[in-house]
């Protein structure tokens, strides 16, 4: 239970200066996710271009440093990427979080998100780290479903 492995500088930086925060137009889907046990909340919008690129992810969130920083890092990672690639990053992050500290993160793919490796050792905080990622996946899935069906 090493606090410094959890609260890495990168995380605290993102917490203090979150990237891409605030709700913006245009967007195809907006979702609201809650961590029911603690009340952390995120409202998140995605804008996917006709070419399948994640053109924007905007959000409004209340929560702890981990959930806030995670949202910020997530937007950095997925904005500008093709949806497929963004989904792969999502998978990778999910695997890291659920790996109980045993998964070696791929820095090529996860960039700043490798700083969250330490979270996996704090089972109660994994949900915090995943909140915005789950919201993003939900919103993106809805967007694609609406577009294709």
């Amino acid at each position: 239970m090493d606090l410094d492995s959890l609260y890495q500088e990168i995380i605290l930086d993102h917490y203090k200066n979150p990237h891409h925060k605030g709700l913006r137009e245009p967007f195809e889907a907006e979702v609201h996710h809650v961590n029911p046990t603690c009340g952390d909340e995120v409202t998140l919008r995605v804008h996917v271009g006709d070419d399948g690129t994640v053109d924007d992810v905007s959000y409004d969130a209340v929560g702890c440093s981990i959930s806030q920083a995670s949202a910020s890092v997530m937007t950095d990672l997925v904005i500008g990427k093709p949806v497929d690639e963004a989904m792969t990053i999502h998978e990778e992050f999910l695997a890291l979080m659920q790996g109980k500290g045993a998964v070696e993160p791929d820095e090529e793919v996860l960039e700043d998100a490798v700083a969250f490796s330490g979270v996996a050792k704090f089972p109660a905080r994994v949900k915090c780290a995943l909140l915005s990622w789950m919201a993003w996946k939900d919103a993106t899935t809805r967007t694609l479903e609406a577009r294709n069906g």
Partner: protein
Amino acid sequence: MDGLLPDLEVVRKDFPILERTLAGGMPLVYLDSANTSQKPQCVIDAMVDHLEHHNANIARAMHQLGAEATQAFEDARDAVAAFIGAPSRDEVIFTKNASEALNLAANTLAWASPYQVGPGDEVVITEMEHHSNIVPWQLLTQRTGATLRWFGLTDEGQLDLSGIDSLITERTKVVSLTWVSNALGTINPVAEIARRAHEVGALVVVDASQAAPQLPVDVVASGADILVFTGHKVVGPTGIGVLWGRREVLEQLPPFLGGGEMIETVRMEASTYAGIPHKFEAGTPPIAEAVGLGAAVRYLGDVGMEAIQAHEQAITAYALDGLATVPGLKVLGPTDAALRGGAISFELDGIHPHDLQTVLDTRGIAVRAGHHCARPAHERFGVQSTTRMSSYLYTTPGEIDALVEGLEYARSYFRLD
């Protein structure tokens, strides 16, 4: 004897209560496992270890003890999901017992959902159900203006399926039946009935309270949409039961009890609810009990449900043979061990079941006397009560011999020879 558990004596050592002696120094001969099963040491130890070292509330408690307790609780859900072949762990809901699980089904079907039961709709059960699979449906149909119908029984104690097409019709919204009868022993063709029910779009609820202890259960193969069983009959603790439901069904049913853990966001004006399984688990769940149940189904899995089934069948066949030697004894339900579970209810001419039960009890033999919460099944056969012996994985042929001797003794005590 073929089919007995090879390590029967080792298995028996796992159950501390089996060493007990009763009044007069009589060793315990426990033949009431269909009522409740005994607990192996590993189940008791798992609960004690939890209470002494990991006790905390779950989910909401995020500290180390909370994380340990949450992990232990959710591990139990995984163990149960594996035990019944659930396609997803989220489909496993912890209730307080099988009765609550059946009431959960019956109550949520009264409220708005695609499955809502209303006036003119029909619910079909059977005449061999346990009271816990009768009364909830009586209450549901009374409260909604629906009609309760039921399968009758053949003289052999089987479901009378001859009228199935006039019983299960377009009006049928729910078919709820037991997999194995706790009174007659009958094993019902649940998958076959489920197929027919699904043809008319009815929901199938299976009471596996007696099946889960005795047979390998595969919820998907069973054809059930909802399947329930109870912890204390699968060598687990009291205070916990299981409702498994198909994801689509559970997601569409409204919540049952409201409160902590089952919510997403609570505002005074209105609330939104969590996804499954939490939607159906209001309040602090039976945490230590889940830990115990997890250990219990792992224990059964380690012994092997096929092996347990074979053991039960061997003991049941042996018991049926032994009982057949007692003058004036009549068994209810199927007399072929292959067609039945291990609960054998019988009458003995000239001795009321209570009196018989007491005589056996003075010899350390624990059986049940009464209607076994299946009064309609008894009424069907014109009996008010019976004596029931029920075996389990720890039952030995010697215990069956003790029962048969006890019956002989009772006959002589009441001067029936």
